[in-house]
């Protein structure tokens, strides 16, 4: 009896679980590879023989890029993501540093105040954002600049929504860093801003990178806000554009173009993952363990 139990507990069940995990891995890789291959195939052959392979057909990319305006949307995605993440880092890093290192009484409550934002779902601000962005746009057009772009509203909303996570995680991270360096810098007579930029930022680079990359992934893939804030299809980002394209598929049947669109949306994140994957996965507990 004991040996039977041993057999199952030590060999059979662990092996079965390993097999399940490998199936999971294989499934992911097959889907990824198949999507990539499909994007290089003609629409008709893809429909009639989805698992087959025929020559390299970049027509799908040409159609998606030009006719489907994925070029414009890729640019929108890149610009809004870059601007949002730049804004998030520029605001959150100094704030987190000050909150982590200051001995002021208000530091702890302010950290809690930021952390409270983690409990707020994006749904809570969806309708306010929708109406406020219309008002903001009207206000800017009438009184300030004479023009406005819904993509700027999107960036502002992205930054505001991402600050709780960034500030909170980075505060924990800055606390974990050694204090000697900045003390030395202070003795040298460096000002606060110089100490921060020239001493703390280089030291904190690993944590800052992880937070930035996590935000890039989240904002690049973001859909709900884009759909609510941006009406003009020319100004929308890739996820919104792709879902629009896939909705019209039953009329156009441009499957090659659709898969090209999928790859255009996914490929930058996969490249990012090759670069930073290890760091992202190790950094998931950044705020917890430190």
């Amino acid at each position, binding site marked *: 009896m004991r040996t039977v139990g041993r057999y199952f507990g030590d060999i059979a069940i662990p092996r079965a679980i390993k097999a399940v995990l490998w199936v999971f891995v294989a499934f992911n890789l097959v889907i990824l590879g198949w999507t990539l291959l499909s994007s290089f195939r003609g629409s008709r052959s893809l429909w009639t023989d989805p698992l087959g392979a025929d020559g390299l057909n970049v027509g799908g990319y040409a159609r998606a890029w030009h006719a489907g305006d994925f070029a414009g949307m890729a640019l929108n995605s890149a610009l809004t993501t870059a601007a949002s993440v730049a804004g998030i880092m520029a605001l959150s890093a100094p704030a987190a540093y*000050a909150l982590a290192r200051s001995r002021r009484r208000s530091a702890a409550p302010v950290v809690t105040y930021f952390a409270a934002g983690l409990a707020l779902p994006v749904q809570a601000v969806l309708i306010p954002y929708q109406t406020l962005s219309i008002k903001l746009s009207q206000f800017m057009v009438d009184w300030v600049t004479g023009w406005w772009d819904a993509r700027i509203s999107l960036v502002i909303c992205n930054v505001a929504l991402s600050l709780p996570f960034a500030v909170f995680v980075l505060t924990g991270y800055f606390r974990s860093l050694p204090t000697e360096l900045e003390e030395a810098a202070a003795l040298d007579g460096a000002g606060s801003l110089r100490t921060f930029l020239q001493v703390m930022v280089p030291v904190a680079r690993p944590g800052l990178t992880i937070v930035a990359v996590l935000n890039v992934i989240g904002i690049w893939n973001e859909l709900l806000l884009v759909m609510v804030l941006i009406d003009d299809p020319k100004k929308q980002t890739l996820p919104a554009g792709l879902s629009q394209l896939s909705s019209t598929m039953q009329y156009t049947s441009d499957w090659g173009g659709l898969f090209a669109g999928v790859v255009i949306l996914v490929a930058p994140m996969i490249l990012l993952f090759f670069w930073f994957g290890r760091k992202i996965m190790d950094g998931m507990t950044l705020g917890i363990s430190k």
Partner: protein
Amino acid sequence: MLSPTAERTAPVADRAGAATRPARRRGTSEGPADRAYRRFMFPAALVYTAGFVLPSVYGVVLSFMKWSGPGTEQKWVGWHNYVRVFRDDTVRQAFGNTLVIVVVGGAGVFALAFCAMAVLREMRGRAFVRAAVYLPSIISMIAIGTSLGFLLNPDGVVNRLLRFVGLHTLERSWLEPQHIFGCIVLGVIWMTSGTYIVLLMTSVDGIPQHLYEEAKLTGLTRLQQFRHITFPLSRDMISIAAVLWTVNSLRTFDIVIGFTGTAGTPTPEARTYAVQQWMTTNSQVGIPELGYGSAMATLLTVLTIVLLVLVRRMSRSERLEIS
């Protein structure tokens, strides 16, 4: 993705803050962070307050109104919108769907994660497995929904494979209303389990190796090692993961759109609570009901907060029992 930290570190932050306070009284000189405190902290606090906190307060105010958007009349209706949410059958169905994702999807995700915790520690190619299962988490759910939607077409790969292996009876039009939600739940499990596997594995990796060696010497099988070592020692991380899962899965949105597209409206069978809420804002669907949508959003916020408080209470009392 958001907030792997909320639960845990908040009390830590408080404690750390409290611990630094006496330092000032001891008369230590002000550091650079003290001198720049306002300048550094204020911009972020301002953007967060004006861009997130105040709009959500505005949302709560709107939830007591009847309103179809700028240019139309705003009317105070008291609790009417909230009463309507509880009486609305489509909302109830959408909320039911969301609960199915939370419970059934959660069971799937955590079953996979526990499996990984039991074997991944000493598995060959573990770094590769970890990366490959994590991969879907960084990919847009719209892209996933589009690819899978093509596979699940009536004449798509899934049905062809079923035909090929002789399982004609299992052939379905998967994206029809009666089956689509099952596909969505499976899609959620597939997409998100990688995050939780990686999160829980970071905790498993922190368990000292010698415990497992001793367990082996005492004759514990691998499954017993999981039960007596890995699971209890990862308990804190598991409760964090459970909180994260609940909070995030209550907001499930993208994957539904990925499967159903944005043209027209998702069928009621496929809607989650977040999708239903979004539809109240959408002028393509009908007259926007911004007050009603705000009431739904406020209820979601309240539910999230209640759950967070409950879980925190529970995990606290557990720890007391252990110590």
